[in-house]
């Protein structure tokens, strides 16, 4: 297969029929629309392409810059397409909550302007909202800025109606349930409209985040009324999912179906299963359901690390730090009072003082002849083994004498002659002030 442009690969994604053993559904065939297989990795490739394809020549001729407000996928697609055509793209958005999305855009060469204080999604109630700021900038520099405005651009739903929805209708015919997470609501609206033309009883279920849960790319119902595209009457119901549901759903698709998808696809799958499983029990005839696999897994590594560190944990060594439980019954046995430090060092020539605060804190105030080993490095250094000579006395120092006491206890459990500065640098500095006064 030979193609001329990556944009030729947008659309015509397959439908994956999920195994009933995985879904647990007896009477409903559940299909995943594999939008993650679009060339730049998400359903937003279609949205981005729809918004600029007819105007590319003009944008290029007038040397305009494309502006968009996006938390990730739309920005990525727009940057990729703009780059292919030698057009500048500038992303104006709320502070990135998904580190890798931002990094991918940086690799692609996007100009990124992050606005602190802005909401993640289109929020016209906020004067510092990216949407508002872009509109203001565009007004002040007429002819220079091409604002694609995915939250209000009707090309967004129209293209999904003509392509995504059309493909599903062509592949499946009648669809009974359509489940999709709500962001701009453009894909949901377009697909739902198209499917209802063949089957007006289609039930469209909007997936929204539960309460304050953060599922990247999805917005809560309350914000929907501020989207120029949202049509409430299009939806049969709205189904809230938690972060945990979304991650569980994603892992099921990743691990059991070979679908290396991201969080919002997981939210869709999880919502679909929860919604459909009750209905499934009451059915006597076969039904068909479709959900969207919006994007890929790679950009959510830090999101997952934060919420599911267990996935990434390495095997734990014997004597490992994580197993150590401080013995608090014996009190602070290895503490050295601040005013005894000088004496202790003089008496023990083979001793070393290690300050485990950050390099910056150490450089600001430190005890003469102490060395700095920031905690993160220190933990790795001593985890499971004593790195000190048998006769060396090690005095640990931290800010208040808590962490130093803990690690002195741990080093003792490994056979090290460990001590620590009681009351930490705070106590030491007070002592110095008294001496100076």
């Amino acid at each position, binding site marked *: 297969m030979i193609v001329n442009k990556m944009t030729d690969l947008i659309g015509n994604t397959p439908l994956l029929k999920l195994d009933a053993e995985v879904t647990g559904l007896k009477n409903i065939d559940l299909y995943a629309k594999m939008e993650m297989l679009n060339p730049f990795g998400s359903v937003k490739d279609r949205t981005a392409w729809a918004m600029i394809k007819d105007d590319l020549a003009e944008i290029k001729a007038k040397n305009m810059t494309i502006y968009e407000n996006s938390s990730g996928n739309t920005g990525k697609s727009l940057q990729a397409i703009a780059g292919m055509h030698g057009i500048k793209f500038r992303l104006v958005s709320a502070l990135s909550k998904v580190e890798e999305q931002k990094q991918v855009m940086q690799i692609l060469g996007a100009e990124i302007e992050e606005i602190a204080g802005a909401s993640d999604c289109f929020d016209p*109630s906020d004067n510092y909202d990216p949407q508002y700021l872009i509109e203001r900038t565009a007004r002040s520099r007429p002819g220079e800025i091409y604002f694609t405005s995915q939250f209000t651009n009707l090309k967004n739903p129209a293209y999904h109606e003509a392509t995504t929805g059309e493909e599903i209708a062509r592949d499946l015919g009648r669809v009974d349930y359509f489940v999709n997470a709500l962001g701009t609501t453009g894909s949901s609206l377009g697909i739902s409209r198209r499917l209802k033309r063949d089957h007006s009883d289609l039930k469209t279920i909007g997936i929204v985040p539960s309460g304050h849960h953060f599922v990247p790319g999805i917005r809560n119902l309350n914000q929907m*009324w501020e989207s120029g595209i949202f049509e409430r009457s299009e939806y049969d*119901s709205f189904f809230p999912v938690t972060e945990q549901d979304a991650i569980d759903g994603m892992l099921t698709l990743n691990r059991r179906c070979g679908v290396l998808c991201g969080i919002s696809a997981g939210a869709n799958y999880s919502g679909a299963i929860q919604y459909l499983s009750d209905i499934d029990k009451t059915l006597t005839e076969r039904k068909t359901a479709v959900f969207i696999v919006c994007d890929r897994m790679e950009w959510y590594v830090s999101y997952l690390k934060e919420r599911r560190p267990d996935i990434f944990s390495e095997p734990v060594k014997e004597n490992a730090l994580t197993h150590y439980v401080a013995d608090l019954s014996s009190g602070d046995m290895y503490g050295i009072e601040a005013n005894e430090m000088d004496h202790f060092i003089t008496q023990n020539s083979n001793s070393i003082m290690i300050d485990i605060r950050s390099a910056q804190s150490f450089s600001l105030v430190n005890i003469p002849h102490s060395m700095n080993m920031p905690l993160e490095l220190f933990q790795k250094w001593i985890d499971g083994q004593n790195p000190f000579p048998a006769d060396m006395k090690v005095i640990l120092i931290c800010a208040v004498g808590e962490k130093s006491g803990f690690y002195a206890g741990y080093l003792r459990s490994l056979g090290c002659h460990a001590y620590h500065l009681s009351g930490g640098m705070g106590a030491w500095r007070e002592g110095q002030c008294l001496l100076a006064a």
Partner: protein
Amino acid sequence: MAVVANLRQAQATDIVRLRPLIHDTVQDFLDTPELVHQLVQGFGSPLNIIFPDHIAENLKSFQDVYRKYSLKGRIYFTSKPCKSKAIIRKASLYDIGIDVSSSESLNHVMAAGFSPERIEATGPKNNDYILKCLQLDILINVDNIAELQSIQKIRHQLGLLRKARVMIRLTGFSSPRMHFTPQDGTFGIHTKEIPALIDWLVARRDEIDFKGFSFHLTDMNEQQKLVAIENAAQLIFHAIQKGLQPKAMNIGGGYPIQYAKDTNEYDEYIEQIKKSVIGKIENQVWNDGGLGYKDHHGVVVGGPLFMNHAPPHTKGGMLDHLLSQRSPVFGNVTYADLIRDNLLELYIEPGRAMLDQCGITLARVTHTKNSTNGELLIGLDMNRSNNHSQNIKNLCEPVLIPRCTGRQAIPLQTRGFYYVGHLCLSYDIIQYNKIYSDQIPQAGDVVAFINTAPYIMDFTESETLMHPVAEKVAVWKENNQFKWATDQKYLPINIYDEAENDCQ
């Protein structure tokens, strides 16, 4: 995977209420209607009920965070959101400082039991206020350079030997890693001017004891606060390198509280208002107002003129959330580590959060009637100055305490209504949002607005049209019995215990 529990079917006829979160003790009090009605009868309507004991729980939520991160420092209770004497008296018993913002409020907290070393003076200051602070050796949070010069001058005039203790309030924060759209502000000294000011302070180190930098960002944007902490830390380190000995960073207040009983209910209620603004359902706001929202070709635009009733982090939880974030500027350490490991004390100034669930406002129902356009109005013997704040409208429905029990309840869906006040002025609407209650209030009933202590019950109260302002009564539980005293006469400990026991 969770089972289907909270599936939400959209139905046009659904009416969503907005019920307040109520502290158990406040609920118990409301469940003793005889006492509620007696107090309103005895002290008149409206009446503010103060629950001074609840300050302890709020304080604990912050102290727990200090303990969690082994932080040292001081919690300065910001006294300005409520004028109650009982609350200040109760607060004086705990290990906290207090933040005052006028000369008179300084007198007020000293009379309530706070000694000068526990007090911090903030706000714009005239020379009288500065004089008093210097005489009493009170920590002054300096707002501008003229103030600093006045401090130096008045200290001279007084012939004081001890140094003036000051913190310096910062503004104008910036970070290379993010772009701030500049929001203007009136308080503080710009960070750009600080290096020169540090030199000035170094030259006057025998006169002025510089304790550190402070800031107070009231809009609750977390990223801006984190950048402010970084900027303040950088300037503190700069000051240390220049030879000053700052000890603390004051990160101010802005810790939200939960007003709504249920977050989902709140979200749905706001959605209901938005739907009404674009005409999908009937009006939910008085006189077609939108509480800040407007209809722009079928799309809701504008911003809320009310506060977030269900913020994601509240009180100590908000502080914990901030301190647990990591600073890319300082090698990705947490903000708690940054402050503690540099041997800085952390000062905070919670106001609203310390007063959470510390007060309610009672009012008697005077009449019910229909408005010109046929809306149901419930008249209350109070006015909007008794339950009002400039920028934090509370939309939660008040709790109804009927005059008599056993009355036939009118079902919720039948009709919503508006609470209006007793002023002979057409704008005296107590709440602009439509209220749906268990039953329709009737003359002689009492309603209780919940959580009004911070900024609502007396922040803007006035004797408009010669209506007296509300009295305050402190209420607490002792041996499972409610006790009360006027706010004036309330004592935070029972010093007459023995006399009482003698009677038994």
